[in-house]
């Protein structure tokens, strides 16, 4: 092989890899442009006041269509908050157990098992929720029906568990052994070491894991669609039915005729969802940089 042809191959590989990298950027820009274009055109027709502060979303009402996203935002935030309250303690707890306490054999079995949860399609989780888990919740809490925020949050938490647990475990395991040894040498016990040395050292990784879990939870559609109950009423307790932004987009794209105001308004909801996630990710990034161990 001559030097020239080797150079050519190098160049081609370089170009190929650069193209691969640019696909992500181009698709992100494209999606954002689409959301902005169609969502923006809907928002020129729907008064902004009604869109952001209107309680009720009902574009196909018998009387007059209403375009307010407050109830959808509340639904999304409620499911997300409940699911985070479930998944963070369990996920981080499992990670601490796996990284610090479990014997290597237990860890070898448990970690792949947790990661395997992520191979359960969310529609299957939804089905299990609809047919088995929701009736159980109803029975446990004495409700007439279990289709509501809490059931959805529990199942969504299950779907986000592998992300949080497995990534937190990676973060904890990658804390250098020297830190632990130094801590023991100073006379600290096992708990003291975990609590005061290992967790703070792994904090940015754990936070990143939590944020990825959060992203997954906010974007989760199928589960909340199937077990959330999807009613138009404002939820006032975790047991009430909830309707999230993702579920509304999934349900209503089916009937919205291409190009109609209804169709474009779904892009506007998508835009809000996108900006919400973007904001959270940016905030997380900033937090991580600030709290990283020097």
């Amino acid at each position, binding site marked *: 092989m001559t030097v020239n042809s080797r150079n050519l191959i190098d160049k081609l590989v370089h170009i190929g890899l650069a193209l691969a990298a640019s696909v992500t950027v181009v698709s992100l820009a494209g999606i954002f442009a689409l959301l902005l274009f169609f969502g923006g055109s809907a928002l020129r027709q729907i008064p902004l006041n009604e869109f952001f502060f209107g309680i009720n979303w009902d574009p196909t009402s018998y009387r007059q269509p209403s375009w307010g996203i407050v109830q959808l935002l509340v639904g999304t935030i409620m499911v997300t908050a409940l699911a985070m309250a479930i998944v963070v303690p369990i996920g981080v707890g499992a990670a601490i157990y796996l990284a610090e306490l479990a014997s290597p054999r237990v860890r070898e079995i448990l970690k792949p098992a947790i990661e395997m949860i992520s191979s359960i399609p969310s529609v299957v989780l939804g089905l299990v929720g609809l047919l088995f888990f929701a009736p159980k919740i109803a029975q446990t809490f004495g409700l007439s029906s279990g289709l509501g925020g809490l059931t959805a949050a529990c199942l969504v938490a299950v779907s986000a568990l592998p992300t949080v647990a497995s990534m937190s475990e990676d973060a904890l395991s990658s804390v250098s052994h020297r830190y632990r040894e130094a801590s023991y040498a100073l006379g600290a016990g096992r708990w003291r070491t975990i609590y005061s040395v290992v967790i703070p050292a792994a904090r940015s990784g754990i936070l990143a894991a939590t944020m990825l879990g959060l992203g997954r939870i906010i974007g989760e559609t199928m589960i909340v669609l199937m077990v959330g109950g*999807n*009613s138009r*009423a404002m939820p006032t307790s975790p047991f009430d*039915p909830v309707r999230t932004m993702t579920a509304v987009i999934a349900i209503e794209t089916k009937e919205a005729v291409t190009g109609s105001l209804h169709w474009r308004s779904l892009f506007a909801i998508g835009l809000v969802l996108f900006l919400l996630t973007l904001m959270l990710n940016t905030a997380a990034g900033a937090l991580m940089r600030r709290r990283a161990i020097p």
Partner: protein
Amino acid sequence: MDKRFLAIASIFASFVVVTSIVSTSRRIEASPSDTQLRSLVIKGSDTEVQLVSNLVERFLENKEGIDISVTGGGSGAGIAALLNGEIDVANSSRDMKEEERTQAKERGIDIGRFTVATDGLTIVLHPENQVRSLSLEQISAIYRGKILNWKEVGGPDMTIALYGRQSTSGTYVFFRDRVLKDDYASTMRTMEGSQAIVDAVKGDMSGIGYVGVGYVKAEGGAQRSDLSVVTIATPDGLQVSPLDTQAVLSGAYPIARPIYQFVVKKAGTESLIHELLTFEMSKEGEEEIGRAGFYPITASDRQENEAYLRNLP
């Protein structure tokens, strides 16, 4: 390293060869050389999806080279897909809305209406709920959120749990426009399909739901025992049931409705659509309709269908 690569590559290559052989042989089987492949895409109403699948399956018996797919998603979804030019036939348990007709006109799409069967929209309760009969006014008030407790209509002291369909559903629109004449109560849980309503009401003592009559019958056409079917009390003191063929066909049952197929007129699919629709009106078609739990079309619907078919080549 090299050996392993060679092994993987050869496994991959043989996989590709085998699958391509299998797929070509299947293609040869599916399209005999003398007839070209003809296909239809049908989508829409969840109420109708089982019925139309059965009809198509029977229609395709002993026929070759025809490919017809039937999927659900709701009447609104079917009609939207028809207007977007994605499908050939939309199943719909409601008529087209004015705005949908306008959109069709704007897009230059010529849509025809064909009636497949008659449905008695059925109100279902948990079998342990002792309420057996309701008037339309009561049903309307329940779904509008004006009656909140079962004891107001002679039942137990329990808050009523409303189950309905999503706005994509033709049944949702028909029930709202015919019975409620107003918006649904905001507390109504909206379900993915009629089967989801059946499952929810089966498990909820205080639940009420509405589904096509086909959903309250078991495989052989007998009524399911795990649901209670409400008879409707008419203003002149009669009790009519959606399970009573006579009452549904005569219109004595107040929420009987024709269920439709909307067809796009375009060259290429017309002759196949003509064949399928003619089959649906035949004796065999009627048998399948009965087996799915629905009722045959009325005489006037039949006349309309025949007039429509005469306009197709």
